[in-house]
C-alpha cells in the first residue's frame, strides 16, 4: 500500500513528513493520476479535459499520535 507518515506527536505543534517519503508519495500519486486519466480518456477528447479521482484514507496511530495517509 502506498502511504506516507505524517508525524504529529502529542504536545507538538509541528507537523512533519520526511522529504524523501514526500517525494516518493508525490511521484506515485502523479503516476496513478496520469494512468487513471489516460485509461479514462475517451476517443475524440480533443482540447477537452479528463477527470481523475483518487481516494485516500487517513488513519491515526493511537499510540504515537501520528497520522498515516494511505492510497
Amino acid at each position, binding site marked *: 500500500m502506498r502511504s506516507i507518515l505524517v508525524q504529529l506527536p502529542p504536545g507538538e505543534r509541528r507537523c512533519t513528513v520526511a522529504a524523501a517519503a514526500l*517525494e516518493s508519495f508525490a*511521484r506515485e500519486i502523479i*503516476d496513478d493520476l*496520469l494512468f487513471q*486519466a*489516460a485509461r479514462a*480518456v475517451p476517443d475524440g*477528447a480533443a*482540447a477537452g*479535459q479528463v477527470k481523475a479521482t483518487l481516494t485516500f484514507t487517513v488513519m491515526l496511530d493511537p499510540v504515537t499520535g501520528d497520522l498515516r495517509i494511505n492510497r
Partner: protein
Amino acid sequence: MELGSRARLSAHTLRDHLLNPVCRTFDEVPWCAEALTPEWLTRVLCDKTPGAAISRVTVSTASTGSSVRKRILVTYNTAGTVAGLVTRFFAKTTPDVLTRLTSGTSAGQEARFFTELAPLLPIELPAHRRSSFDRVSGRSLHLFEDLVETRAAQFCDYRTTFTHRQIEAALETLACLHGTLHGDARLVTQFSWIPRYETFFSALAATGTRAGHEQAMEEARHLIPPAVYAARDRLWPAAEDSLAEHAEGPRSVIHSDVHPGNWYLTAEGRPGLCDWQCIAQGHWSRDLAYALSSMLDPLSRRQWEQDLLARYLQALAAAGGPDIPLETAWHHYRRQLPAALLMWTPTLCHPPTMPDMQPAVVSLEMIRRITTAIDDLGVPT
C-alpha cells in the same frame, strides 16, 4: 525529476488524445491510424512509382487487443491507379495507454524482425510496408498490405480446424524459422536486439501475471483436467524450470506466441505467421509445444502429434537446425507445455496494466486445450 515509465506513457497518451495531432512530417510517428495523412502515406507507398500520390485515406475498425488494428483504404491519383498500387492496408497502432504499456515499447522488435530478419526467412509472412515507433511516447505503427485483398488470405482463430497438411506446413514454417539461425554467431552480434526468452518471461512475470495465472486456474477449473488442477501449484514453477532449456544449447529465433489467432492461410492453403512482437532467442521446443497444444483440438493432437513431431524434426534439420532424436524432442515438448499455458491464464485474468487482449471464450479454449495436453503428456511432479 523524471517520472517512471508508466507515468510517461500515460502523459504522452493524454497529450495525444487531447491534441489529436496529425503527422506533419515523415519522421513523426502517427499516434493512431486516424492521424495518417495522404502525404505521409504517399511517402511510404508511392516511393517507387513516379507521379503517384494518395489523395484520400479511409480508416475503419478491425480489432483491438495488445494493439489497435485498423483497415486502411487509400485512393490514388491517376498515376497510382494506372500503376495498380495496392489500395488496402492493415495498421497496428498503440493509441491508448494499455496498448502502449503492452506493445508500444516493444514495437521495435517487430519492426526489426520485418526489416532485418524476415528477408532471410523463406516463409509466408505479411507484406510489411512500414514500421514507425517511439519508445519514449509508446507511439507505434506497423503497416502491412491487407492480406485479405492481396493474397485472398483467411485469418485463423480458435475455431479454425486445421487439416493435417496445414498443421504440418505450419510446423515446417516454424522449423524453418528455428533452423535458419540456430546457433548462428549473428545472434550475439547483428541480431543481439532479439531478447532472450528468459527476459521475455521475466518481463511478463514482473507485471503481476502470476496472480492472474492463479486466478484463471480457478475461473477455468471446469475446463481443466482434474489432475492438472490438482497440480496447479506446480505449473508456474514448472514453467520457470523450463527456462533452463533455453540456455542449455545453441539458441534459435522463436516466435513465442504461435496460437491459432496469429496464423493465416493464403488462398493456396499455405500458413503464414503474423504478430512478431514477442520474438525471442530460445529453445525451438517452446514454439513447438505451444503450436501443437493450442492449434489442434485434443482429439486431432492425440492422433497426429507423433507424426507431426517427426515431420517437424526432419524440417528442422533440413533448415540448418540440430538433428534431434524423437524421444528427446518429446521430452522437450512435454516440458515446455506449462510455459505455453502461461500465455493464456494471465490473458484471461490480466493485471490492470494490460488490455483485454482476447475475448474470454478464446482464453478459455486455449486453457482447455493446453491443460489437456499437459494431462495427456504428464503432469509436472
